[in-house]
């Protein structure tokens, strides 16, 4: 695996000067993932969302590598078509048979957990040689912080508001990483922008695998989470340390925890600094808070059993 020093010498495929907010987790996720791609050329696809609109404002582009945006729900299908073209053109003799190219599709949690789930599932089942990366910021940020199925229970969102009748989002979040693991594809991982080494190593594995790979990257959104823009990495780290976002991988069906959490912190430490959870700390919401902790505990225990199964 590359050292930090080596990584800093690799050229960034996503240039600075894009229009994402200061402290946005999405660009950190992209840069770390692409550093893991190594030296082969990379073709990038991206779903509609903050990342796409902020990096491709015509006539400018932040992408120093071939890039395609098609629509919101079809980043996976689009890149599967590009990868198919690569195979077809090779067979036609128009691309040398030994040419190596990596294909990666990015999508936000909305474009992945919700509207693009079918497209992603289809592409993974078909076995395209591609990596799909979800940058999960837990809401539809681009359209103004609406809830998604990745939004944590209890979080405020503009379509899951806080009032006397309801304390933010009522439902638990969907566990997409496990859904992807259930596809039985060669490589699935859950990662966080706070753990750069873990993430770049997972990306390197995902790109090295022949066939489909999926990585779910925790990527805080200061704007939507109501946190200062210099707290992105800190909050992401707390998600890992509280067990809210466990870091693990599933390689050929073998589940492995990649970052151990020794003294798991209470989930409150992750929730409290974020404005979107402010109401949970008002008197009367103690039960909800306890429920959120219980949810994290149960999911954590279940996951530990998977690891021990290995």
């Amino acid at each position: 695996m590359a050292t930090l020093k080596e990584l800093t010498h690799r050229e960034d495929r996503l240039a600075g000067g894009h229009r994402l907010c200061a402290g946005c987790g999405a660009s950190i996720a992209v840069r770390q993932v692409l550093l893991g791609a190594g030296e082969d050329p990379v073709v990038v696809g991206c779903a509609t969302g903050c990342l796409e609109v902020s990096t491709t404002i015509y006539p400018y582009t932040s992408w120093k590598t071939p890039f395609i945006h098609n629509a919101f729900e079809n980043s996976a299908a689009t890149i599967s078509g590009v990868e198919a073209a690569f195979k077809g053109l090779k067979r036609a003799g128009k691309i040398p048979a030994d040419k190596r190219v990596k294909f990666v599709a990015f999508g936000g949690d909305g474009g992945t957990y919700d509207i693009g789930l079918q497209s992603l599932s289809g592409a993974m089942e078909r076995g395209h040689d591609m990596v799909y990366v979800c940058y999960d910021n837990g809401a539809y940020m681009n359209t103004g912080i609406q809830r998604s199925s990745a939004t944590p229970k209890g979080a405020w969102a503009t379509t899951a508001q806080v009032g006397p009748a309801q304390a933010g989002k009522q439902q638990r979040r969907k566990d997409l990483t496990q859904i992807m693991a259930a596809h039985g594809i060669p490589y699935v991982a859950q990662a966080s922008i706070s753990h750069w080494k873990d993430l770049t190593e997972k990306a390197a594995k995902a790109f090295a695998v022949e066939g489909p790979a999926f990585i779910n990257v925790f990527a805080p959104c200061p704007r939507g989470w109501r946190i200062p823009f210099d707290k992105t990495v800190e909050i992401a780290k707390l998600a890992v340390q509280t067990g809210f976002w466990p870091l693990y991988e599933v390689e050929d069906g073998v589940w492995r925890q990649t970052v151990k959490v020794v003294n798991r912190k209470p989930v409150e430490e992750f929730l409290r600094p974020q404005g979107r959870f402010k109401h949970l700390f008002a008197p009367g919401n103690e039960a909800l808070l306890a429920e959120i902790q219980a949810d994290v505990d149960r999911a954590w225990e279940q996951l530990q059993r998977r690891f021990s199964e290995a």
Partner: protein
Amino acid sequence: MVEQKVVAATGNTVVAEAMRQCKPDVVAAYPITPQTTIVEEFAAFVAKGRVHTEYVTVESEHSAMSACIGASAAGARVMTATSSQGLALMWEELYIASGMRLPIVMANANRALSAPINIHCDHSDAMGARDAGWIMLFAETAQEAYDNTIMAVRIAEDYEVLLPVMSCLDGFITTHSIDRVSLLDDESVAGFVGEREAERALLDLEHPVTHGAFAGLGGPYLEFKKAQRQAIERSRAVVKRVGDEYAALSGRPFGVLETWGMDDAEVAVVVIGSTAGNVRHVARALRADGKKVGVVKIRCFRPFPYAELAEALSGVKAVAVMDRAESFGAEGGPLYLETRSALYDASNRPAVVGYVYGLGGSDVKLELVESVYGDLLDIAGGAAAPAGPVYLGAR
């Protein structure tokens, strides 16, 4: 003109054959009646190793067109096929394919749209996509479906055009009936369509390009759309040139519209697709009876042949437009609206009556066509035109 093999085959079989002969690098498709046998027969070519195509068995039509877009942007020759609900599910992607100027060729086996669900022929599916920026060809017969598919590749990939082309054939009537079809040999088709020379392809790795950029925030969206309009206008000449070249190769003339009996016709029917055969049949009988009737069949609906249609209809007293699709809330079906528009600047505007027929595969009996000509001859004789659209054969 080259020598050709005459076969008895269905429209779908010869469309699959044309696809094979055009050597697509990628086919991404999803099955739907009555398109299904196209993708099944193409899958058989893949299994037998008769094509180099990467065949992507997507999980939906939305993904079919999404994958076609990715593959076409990558620089591949891309083809697909669909029908009805499948085309409707692609709606968002149809506009993206044309907006990104990608020369995808898609066969559409025309079928009614739900609700109520119905698997039989009408043109609602294609007509619903008529403003999506695709060039649209319609076939009367299996032969035309075969010929249109091959021409579509040349038209789409022409550098003056770079637009997707939809090649339509009537569900079941053309897709599933066995017809007599002349097939070109593989070399002739390969020579005719040539190879795709993609520029600014995604897989031109030394020259990275961003496809599908954001053109909001005061960006040049309007100018992109103007460029798209100019491209489809340029395609008029390209469609004609490719049609002429194809006619020289195959011996089968191609026109954006085709006329029968129009030289001295007093009344005419304008029609699209397989029904043109029924209409000609009735017209021939009426001619034998001394009635001056004619037929205009539209073969290229987008870009619409306004000038050619106005020219063909100059001199007639009454026109019937037969629409196999609705445009609810409009004065008539899509073809009616276009025909009226084509005639607006004519010096002697004929009466124009709209008929809606054959929706969901409802029978297009010869008596119905006779009743249309009957109306027209009455109007030419001074009777008032009926208020349209007239629902032909509705109980």
